[in-house]
């Protein structure tokens, strides 16, 4: 076993599972290849593997880094309430709700939606904007309330 660990880098369970998994994946590719547009399916899976790490993660990390100085400038004033999570929370809600309904919000699937339901996707953009707006507004109100409370407690001190 120590031989396996030295040459392979892990134990027998790891070896068996990993090889079985990759062999099965090979079988899957072989099975799906004759399907129409199967290459496109494979390309989409490859793109899916990369989209978070290559597109989403850099995007939200950069946005978060841009937000951070909003608090850094206040560092040292112990009365201040950190602003950052009052932006993060509504921003995450807005982004997640867009992710789960983007074809409706962007009216990207209007013809098929109409064929199926006889209705249009017209309401969804407004609903999503309203949702985003309310989330930011609610967060701002809570932020102001916290700020006032901190100020007041400083005055009473």
């Amino acid at each position, binding site marked *: 076993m120590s031989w396996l660990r030295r040459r392979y880098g892990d134990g027998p369970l790891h*070896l068996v599972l990993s090889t079985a998994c990759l062999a099965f994946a090979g079988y899957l590719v072989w099975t799906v290849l004759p399907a129409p547009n199967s290459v496109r*399916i494979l390309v989409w899976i490859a793109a*899916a593997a990369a989209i*978070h790490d290559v597109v989403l993660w850099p995007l939200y990390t950069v946005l978060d880094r841009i937000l951070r100085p909003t608090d850094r400038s206040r560092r040292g004033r112990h009365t201040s309430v950190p602003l950052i999570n009052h932006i993060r929370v509504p921003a995450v809600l807005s982004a997640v709700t867009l992710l789960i309904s983007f*074809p409706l919000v962007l009216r990207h699937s209007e013809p098929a939606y109409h064929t199926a339901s*006889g209705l249009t996707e017209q309401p969804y953009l407004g609903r999503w904007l309203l949702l985003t707006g309310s989330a930011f507004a609610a967060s701002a109100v809570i932020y102001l309330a916290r700020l006032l409370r901190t100020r007041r407690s400083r005055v009473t001190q």
Partner: protein
Amino acid sequence: MVRRVGEALVMNTRLSQNSRLQRIPGPHEMSRFWRSPIRGPWLTSVFGIVLLVGIPVEFLTGVVSWAAYDPRLHGNDVTTHHGILSVFLFDWVTSPSWIYRVSQGTHVLLGLVLVPVLLAKLWSVIPRLFAWPPLRSIAHLLERASLLLLVGGAIFEFVTGIMNIDYDYSFGFSFYDGHFFGAWVLIAGFVVHATLKFPRMWASLRSRPLHRELQVGLSGTAPEVPEPGDDPANSLIAANPAAPTISRRGVLGLVGGSSLAVFFLTSGQSIRSLQGISVLSPRTQSYGRGPNAFQVNRTAVAAGIRPVDIAEAWALTLIAESSGRNVSLTRDQLLNMQLVTADLPIACVEGWSVQERWTGVPLRLLAEQVGIRHPTGARVESLERNGAFSSASLSGHQVRAPESLLALKVNGADLSLDHGYPARNIIPAAPGVHNTKWVNRITFSGVAT
């Protein structure tokens, strides 16, 4: 600045034997680049255990949905190539009538609710992607390959699923082929990952009880403590953590809260009492009031139904496959037969469902009209001119079920044109597309007498 870079180089030289490679600055410098004080095995394990339960539920309900189409029957298979992956198929059930409604509603709703958890999980482990050296051993290479299947399969399934429930087919391949294939890719990677990581996940979860973690606010938030034997150069725990800007319970609240918000914003299409607040659900727009005011899946205009097709001259043709005997029945003749009323759902593969009160002729009575007492199956054809589901095959089990109806009325009124006038099928527990609308011919199989 120069001094700080110099310090970094010295630190890295000490941290790793691959110092020459590690001098290139970037995300592979685990300890310096990744500074989140809350990232660590415990947080990853919390998201991990949610997905450990959620992904298998998604897989099983997905497989059930495929079985519910009865793909072994003529013309019902919506996928084109599935090799040995069809070995588990069984004849789909007709009772309880809500089974497909619940299983497919769960599939879609749980999938949507898991989106924030999946994203959080990916964020929590991203330093691993840049682990240095990128390939430590053959084992590491194989593990990375299986992770590619896991992550690619998972995101592919979520994206195609979301697009399909919103009628977006711009991916340019058959949704059924893609989603079916992606599910197997995902589960292949999942089994390996879950098996190999389970002991580590369990140990991490036990090291910090959740209820205690939920009491720690921002001021008490500190990095996790590495387990003995962990390689610090490739740990998720930042060696040089930044000051916390959010607590662990804050992140859990944000992820859990987002999931809860998604639940309430999309569940109304399956749970009627939540319809009012489900503003992002693709299927909660109102059709007004009245017996026919419920979700339409394909309009008569889209299906190419012409007024002449459904005028007074319309008659249903029943055929016995074995004897060739056939009978034509007008709508009035059908209405004069022995009618049955039943509360049955229409449950779509896209997750939405409704339950209505249907009145119509049981299919087994129609089979008797052409001399078949024990039908073993039926082929139902629609007037529909275009569309993948203009016909459907039913199993003998489905045809014989007492509540399988050729419905003529819904909620006490005649069917509307969009709901399949003059007659449509309603099969208990079947996927919505097997409830063929605008039926004009049914061919029964079985011994004719």
